[in-house]
């Protein structure tokens, strides 16, 4: 009577193959996960203390981004609107709306509104809004169609690779600064995108750097 029955041949070879394949599969899986929208947090829904609807303000009312995010052109930070800015309209408009009761409460108590940050870079990354906005990188390029978002969510992966890709070849992303905040601007199809980009890069003297100290300090 032999030690092992015949079927063990198949089993043993199969298990051998699996043993080798397992780590490979695991590593591949991890790589896929970090690239997935879950890994990049793009699918994460961030609920805000106040139901602020960008669709309404940007889309319907067509308010320029810079009206609220007022320091985006001169500061690394886009500038979150101070409650005063909300009230500047909502003192007259909807000044009784229950939706805005919290805003009024914060305002009259002179307390800041604790917004939840959506685009959250690691703290060792120094992204500067001012330079990008001044050199023709539009809001929509990174933040997506905010005018169509009820609840703002992260549009781009914001991975280093994603940043570097653009820094290596910015031209296709550039647009005339007068349309910087436009959500709908499309380059005139007749002109070649790359050419237009190159021309803008010339005009705004864009030269992107990929040295580490560009973002890490």
């Amino acid at each position, binding site marked *: *009577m*032999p030690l092992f029955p*015949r079927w063990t041949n198949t089993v*043993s070879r199969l298990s051998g193959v699996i043993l080798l394949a397992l780590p490979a599969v695991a590593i591949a899986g991890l790589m896929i996960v970090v690239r997935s929208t879950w890994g990049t947090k793009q699918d994460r829904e961030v609920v805000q203390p106040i139901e602020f609807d960008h669709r309404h303000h940007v889309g319907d009312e067509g308010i320029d981004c810079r009206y609220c995010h007022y320091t985006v052109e001169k500061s690394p930070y886009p500038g979150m609107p101070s409650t005063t800015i909300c009230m500047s309209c909502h003192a007259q408009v909807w000044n009784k709306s229950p939706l805005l009761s919290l805003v009024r409460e914060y305002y009259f108590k002179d307390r800041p509104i604790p917004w939840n940050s959506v685009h959250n870079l690691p703290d060792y990354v120094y992204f500067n809004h001012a330079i990008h906005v001044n050199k023709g990188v539009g809001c929509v390029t990174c933040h997506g169609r905010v005018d169509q978002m009820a609840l703002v969510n992260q549009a781009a992966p914001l991975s280093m690779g994603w940043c570097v890709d653009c820094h290596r070849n910015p031209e296709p992303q550039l647009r005339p600064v007068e349309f910087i905040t436009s959500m709908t601007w499309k380059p005139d199809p007749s002109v070649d995108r790359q050419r237009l980009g190159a021309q803008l890069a010339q005009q705004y003297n864009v030269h992107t750097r990929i040295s580490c100290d560009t973002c890490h300090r």
Partner: protein
Amino acid sequence: MEHAAEHAAPIGKTFVLGRFPTGEALVDACYKVREKGFDAIDTHSPYPLHGGDEALGLGQSRVPRIALTGGLTGMFGGYLMMVYMNAFNWPLNVGGRPPHAPPSFIPITFETTVLLASLSIFFGLLALMRLPQPYHAVFEHEGFRSAVNDGFWLSVALPPGSDGKDASALLQQLGAKEISTVQESLE
């Protein structure tokens, strides 16, 4: 084999086993058995037999070619990987050294060469030897356990249909001590 499968109900291979007192006896026997027209034979011994390969009429081994292929893959793969990563995909200014620095790439190239060669040898061997194969018909015979310790066995695979009488007889006359006919089980 297929033929048999088509017509009759499948039956496992049959082997005739015979143990010989010494390696030399076994080797001689091989020649004789092959003269008698049994080509599907194999020896089983605790260590490689002298002239065993010739006795079984085996030619050049394929292992060296496998090794060479693996080695070359490792060599070029390794070097090109480094060139791509450090010189092509993202050439960084590292201490003013040239991004493509052949001397610095040699050690890893060597390692990858050896690594892939060795892996291909090992797994190539397993493939050539059809291992792992915990079950084989020869194990059906309890006495065959001596084959890896102190016994020298000759196994003759019988052509389909043959009952193996002639083979056993032959072995007997060649001086095999312990002769038995084993059949491969099907489950």
